[in-house]
């Protein structure tokens, strides 16, 4: 074996130590610089008026319609996407985990997870917007539901997989019907994991922009025409104000909207991580 001197190896190691520490700190600095920029620029716009007035090209505008629009679109996506994903996950684990069909389902879920969000937008444009003849918040919900669907499948099947088989056998021995076994026993055991997984999926899709550009567009009105008219959303509001406007104050609105959506998403994320940590400690 080749002999290498100890000093060289130690120097190598020291360089590696300091390099990896520096890189880790640098990436954290990038996050803080990002947050600092958003807070610095966004806090100027933030006021009570900003939160309760709808968007408009004038100076005293707000983002209330965009907040409502994003909530409506995300809620619609959750209603469509989460049950479908959970039922598919149940099918994969509880009913049919070995057959050729379930393998195909698994592979398609994985493939769908990798599909870029803008392609989902294109697909939903051709599926919902073209036949109905108008852009709508509902189309955006469908697009986000398609993005959520495979994520929820993965979360559900991972979580159900972790429930020990002995529990199922015990339930069957008591002759409990299968659907009650799944909902009342297995779901209860997998509760915290399922909950955080679903919340994370919701947080992820609520920050999507690209599919919304092709499906819900933007409007200055409140989202009353969710099924039939273009609907405002926070992310598209950022896009509109940041790119299409000649005025400084509209840019400020964009930063304000960015601050609001970042805070909302980070709160969802951090609360999920706390739930996870807490339940992990309780189990120990």
């Amino acid at each position, binding site marked *: 074996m080749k002999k290498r001197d100890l000093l060289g*190896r130690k120097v190598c190691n020291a360089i590696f130590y300091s390099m*990896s520490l520096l890189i880790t700190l640098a990436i954290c600095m990038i996050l803080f610089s990002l947050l600092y920029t958003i807070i610095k620029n966004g806090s100027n716009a933030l006021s009570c008026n900003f939160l309760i007035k709808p968007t408009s090209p004038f100076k005293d505008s707000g983002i209330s319609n965009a907040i409502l629009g994003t909530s409506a679109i995300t809620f619609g996506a959750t209603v469509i996407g989460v049950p479908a*994903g959970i039922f598919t996950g149940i*099918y994969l684990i509880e009913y049919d985990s070995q057959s050729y069909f379930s393998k195909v*389902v698994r592979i398609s879920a994985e493939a769908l997870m990798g599909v870029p969000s803008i*392609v989902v937008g294109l697909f939903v444009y051709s599926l919902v917007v073209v036949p109905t003849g108008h852009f709508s918040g509902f189309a955006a919900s469908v697009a986000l539901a398609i993005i959520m669907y495979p994520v929820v499948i993965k979360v559900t099947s991972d979580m159900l997989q972790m429930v020990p088989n002995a529990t199922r056998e015990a339930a069957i021995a008591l002759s409990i*019907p299968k659907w009650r076994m799944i909902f009342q026993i297995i779901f209860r055991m997998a509760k915290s994991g399922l909950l955080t997984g679903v919340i994370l999926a919701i947080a992820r899709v609520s920050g999507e922009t*690209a599919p919304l550009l092709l499906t819900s567009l933007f409007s200055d009105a409140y989202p009353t025409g969710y099924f039939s008219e273009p609907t405002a959303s926070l992310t598209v509001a950022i896009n509109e104000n940041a790119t299409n406007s000649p005025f400084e104050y509209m840019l400020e609105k964009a930063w304000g909207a*960015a601050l609001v959506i970042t805070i909302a998403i980070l709160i969802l994320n951090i609360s999920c991580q706390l739930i996870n940590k807490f339940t992990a400690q309780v189990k120990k």
Partner: protein
Amino acid sequence: MNKFLIKNCIKSDFFDKTFKIISLLSATLIILLLGSFLLQLLVLGADSIKTFGFGFLISKDWDPVKNIYGALPAICGTFITTILSLAIAIPLSFCIAIYLVEIAPKTVSSVLSVTINMLAAIPSIIYGIWGIFVVAPLMQQKIIPFINQAINFLIANVINKISTLCGGSELQFIDTQVNSGCNLLTASLILSIMILPFICAIMQDIFRLVSPLVKEAAYGSGATTFEVSRKITLRSGLNGVVGACFLGLGRAVGETMAVLYVVGNVQQVSASLYEGGTTISATLANNFAEASGLFKSSLFELGFILLVMTFIIQLISKLFVKYVIKTM
């Protein structure tokens, strides 16, 4: 048997059946969805496929006035930004993952990994506006001139000395003027920051799974941390590390909003990273609103190309993990 019990049994049997059917239907839905994705985009892109044929993939023309479209600038831009961003993100996330798993104390490591996970949660449009208002000016005024100076210095002091020693002619580096911070290099940088937390999170999980016995044996025979992480941790987790890299690749290929803001959106193929460019997803987001007819159809074909690209990436990653790693 008493009547009540029989009734109950029938009722629960009915519920059971409906429950199973609902699950089966929603499982079938995902296969249908995937099939209709391919079909729908192909059908809507058919016009452009008929008009341009295979030339669409290698044509540089992009002229909405004359109605001539080619995908080469978008495909090239996608390849360049993706590969460059992976080249930046993979070594960085390896270092970070090793630091968090092997070196850092437990509390520090858990705080830092939460911080890095937060990077993944931030929506891509936020990266976009941060990129265009903060990073792009910084690139134009500070970083790119610095890189140019460094390359100049290297050429003047090292490469030219070697080439004169060997009897060759002197090289001259042309200091290109940068007219905008929105270019392929900036886009790749932002992209690499966005995919880093995903790669890093998986690497951490994998490195934690490496058997401590093997690591301890290596330490016991006198290896340094660097050697252990390179030769033991990386080697035994290679399977998952490759998977993580492919996941990052899949994300980088389809990323839209962040890239759209900083890539410059110019339909051109250029060898210089300081020039603006475009990617498939940026072209789609930028042009879709005003497109119609053949223009729209060619955008659908671009979408189809992007979809097929992501499928191919997934397929390669599966095959790679299955065959190549096993033989190593």
